[in-house]
């Protein structure tokens, strides 16, 4: 028998970003014995990096806002492929979840009459994002973290899950290792909540950190759970492009929300040329109209004209940028320009966008109060993930739940900015409650087979025995370049097929990685284990992308441009058929009338 420590728990939460923390808080509040594990230290998850804000129709900044408008915006932004029940619950519950954060100590920016201030963002009809300057995620994670540490739960930092275990058709536990010692921990858990975030690290140009290796999607699929909407990867339009070493780092959409404009190397404000028909009525037709909107909004008035085209949804803006660059109107480093300097005063920029100011001056020698930024698309967010029940967040495997970026459904084909932070707290809470309820109702056992644990540990340690295998860093780099080239922002059948062939080859090579050094805090070893998950998640993205023969939201095909109405009727599921990955079309059920009316009202 291999050597490991054993912990018993009712609910095991994997991940300590907004979703994991909120789920763990709920589960502990409902009296469950709760454990929470994470790859980094507490408070360092991706959520800490979120800048712009959390979307919730509180109507503090514009009384015309309501859950109904938020619902409509979310569905339109998701190109109608969203799970409508999730979109409805999210729009209805987000204000309560944000107010709850205030009750737990969050200090959001304020309106002139002392309420939570809300800012504009792409795709949101009214100013809707509760925010704290451009460090909203930090405020959120700190508040949730402080709430969590004062509740009865066991917290394991730098403790990475590598395997889930089942007994029959139900989840019964997970295996993890701690980074500092390399020791293994077996969690015998009656239920598991995945809150592991996304998988942008499979791409070269990304805003994501080392943690984002698609672990949750991969673990769920391996446990037999269905994945959904995996073809939809959000390429955020504004990542930094220069210097190369910082390529991909995010420039918050808040810059455009505060009035920033996009220009090409001819100085043209090109977004006016890319307004899709579906949005023609919502977007300013001229420079003058767009500028008036900005002036009204920043002086706290209700907008009387239409919004600037820079605030179209992210998929539209990202593709416009790619097209400008392709047609020779890009910047010298292959991006375009984002200019706030000519739109707002230096003081305003420093107050509303302090960390952007800081980031550019420190890392790129660019003073954004004086010069434009050079930006281009960066792999940012996965709309797809684990298929879950809209109310309980349970996956298709008993006892396995998912919330936050690792879950799927809320965002459909494209996520609106700000809808993630609110997603985390709305569905994090629901997942915690769902797991607690499952444990109470079904009284599951948590009996993990010793044989399964031994096999999992052996797999994790195998790389130490390969003496002349490949370097995991080199394989990772090749995978990233391949995914960026073949499964990036513009896709076509030929490329996607090549990607599948390459993935087969990578998979073979990954079985022969070799690792040097000991088990103590060994990043090469950690990467070797992460690569297994990246390969599985990359394959799921590629297979779904090959199947969807149209362009919609975060999935664009040069060989099938535009929407195909047949594909509006289906979501794509990635299933595990005897350890083979297969794609299946799931027909969408029609919207109930009252929701349908909301979408069509506009």
């Amino acid at each position, binding site marked *: 028998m291999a050597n490991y420590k054993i912990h018993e728990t009712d609910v095991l939460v994997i991940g300590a970003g907004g979703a994991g923390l909120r789920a763990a808080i709920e589960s502990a509040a409902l009296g469950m014995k709760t454990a929470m594990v994470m790859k980094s230290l507490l408070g*360092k998850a991706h959520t800490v990096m979120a800048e712009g804000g959390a979307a919730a129709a509180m109507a503090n900044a514009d009384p015309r806002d309501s859950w109904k408008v938020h619902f409509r915006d979310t569905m339109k932004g998701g190109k109608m492929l969203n799970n409508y029940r999730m979109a409805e619950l999210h729009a209805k519950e987000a204000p309560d979840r944000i107010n709850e954060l205030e009750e737990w100590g969050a200090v959001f920016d304020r309106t002139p009459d002392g309420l939570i201030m809300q800012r504009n963002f792409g795709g949101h009809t009214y100013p809707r994002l509760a925010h704290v300057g451009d*460090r909203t995620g930090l405020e959120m994670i700190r508040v949730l973290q402080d709430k969590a540490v004062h509740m009865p739960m066991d917290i394991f930092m730098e403790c990475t899950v590598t395997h889930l275990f089942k007994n029959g058709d139900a989840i019964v536990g997970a295996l993890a290792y701690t980074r500092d010692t390399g020791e293994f921990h077996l969690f015998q858990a009656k239920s598991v909540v995945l809150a592991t975030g996304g998988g942008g690290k499979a791409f070269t140009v990304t805003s994501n950190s080392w943690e984002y290796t698609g672990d949750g999607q991969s673990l769920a699929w391996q446990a037999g759970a269905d994945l959904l909407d995996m073809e939809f990867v959000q390429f955020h339009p504004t990542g930094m492009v220069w210097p190369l070493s910082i390529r991909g780092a995010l420039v918050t959409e808040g810059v455009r929300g505060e009035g920033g404009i996009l220009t090409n190397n001819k100085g043209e404000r090109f977004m006016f040329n890319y307004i899709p028909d579906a949005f023609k009525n919502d977007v300013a037709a001229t420079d003058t109209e767009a500028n008036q909107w900005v002036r009204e909004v920043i002086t706290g008035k209700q907008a009387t004209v239409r919004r600037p085209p820079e605030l179209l949804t992210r998929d539209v803006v990202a593709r416009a940028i790619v097209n400008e660059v392709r047609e020779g109107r890009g910047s010298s480093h292959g991006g375009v320009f984002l200019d706030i300097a000519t739109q707002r005063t230096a003081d305003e920029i420093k107050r509303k966008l302090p960390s952007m100011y800081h980031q550019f001056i420190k890392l790129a020698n660019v003073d954004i109060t004086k010069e434009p930024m050079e930006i281009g698309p960066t792999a940012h967010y996965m709309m797809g993930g684990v298929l879950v029940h809209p109310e309980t967040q349970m996956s298709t495997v008993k006892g396995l739940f998912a919330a936050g970026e690792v879950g799927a459904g809320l965002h459909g084909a494209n996520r609106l900015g700000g809808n993630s932070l609110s997603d985390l707290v709305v569905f994090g809470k629901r997942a915690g409650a769902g797991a607690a309820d499952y444990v109470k109702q079904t009284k599951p056992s948590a009996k993990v087979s010793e044989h399964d644990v031994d096999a999992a540990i052996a797999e994790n340690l195998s790389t130490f025995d390969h003496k002349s295998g490949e370097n995991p860093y080199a394989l990772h780099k090749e995978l990233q370049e391949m995914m960026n080239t073949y499964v990036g922002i513009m896709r076509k059948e030929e490329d996607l097929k090549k990607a599948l062939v390459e993935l087969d080859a990578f998979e073979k090579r990954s079985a022969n990685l070799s690792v040097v050094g000991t088990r103590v805090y060994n990043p090469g070893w950690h990467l070797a284990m992460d690569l297994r998950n990246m390969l599985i998640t990359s394959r799921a993205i590629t297979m779904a992308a090959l199947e969807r023969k149209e362009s919609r939201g975060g999935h664009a095909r040069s060989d099938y441009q535009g929407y195909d109405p047949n594909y509006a009727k289906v979501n794509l599921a990635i299933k595990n058929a005897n350890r083979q990955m297969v794609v299946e079309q799931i027909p969408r059920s029609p919207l109930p009338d009252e929701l349908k009316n909301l979408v069509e009202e506009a």
Partner: protein
Amino acid sequence: MSNNVHMRVFRGDQTGGGFKDYQVQADEGMVVLDVIHRIQAEQAPDLSCRWNCKAGKCGSCSAEVNGKPKLMCMTRMDTFTPGQTITVEPIKTFPLIKDLVTDVSWNFQVNKKIPPFKPRPKNPDGTWRMMQYEADRVQEFRKCIECFLCQDVCHVLRNHGKHEDFFGPRFMVRLASLEMHPLDAADRLKLIKEIGGIGFCNITKCCTEVCPEDIHITDNAIIPLKERVADRFYDPLTRLFRIFAGGGQK
């Protein structure tokens, strides 16, 4: 534009260790963290370091670069003189795990001792009104990314090892963010004095100098907390002092 740089990186663990030399290619715009990553990828795959955001937002990548406490991801290579050897070593106040990674769990234990936010009752209209100027006062403290660089340089912890008696500047900032929170109703002054050990701070301001978030730790957090503590616990004395100083009674 790229050039070869000479890096000396600490390699070792609890059992011992020392600096190891690496020659690395540094490209335009690179920061120290990029160079460390390049060493990992090409020469030393087991070189340990922490990072997450690579943009100064998460506070994971703290280290001492040429002896100065820094975020590696915000320290550009072109700020060094060409040809200069660059040393990178772990922060000192906490036990070493391996290479550039230290055991910072003590900080999380300290945080647990601080009583959480406790809101005052809501207004009759079911809201809490808070004006921006009130928010501004604490938002400075809430910018803290928990890089623990201030803990690294504070002599009370670094040189005197008073981890049992003093929370350190980071948690004075945290306490200030709660004590000055416009909606908070809890009272932490006794804790600040007796368990937090605010008296150990002798206002050297070393912490403020290294804070990457430019939080005025000493002036805006520690000194006002010291005043509150003094007002509460040494009130007769302060009053006496004020009389002698000609301030009269309030």
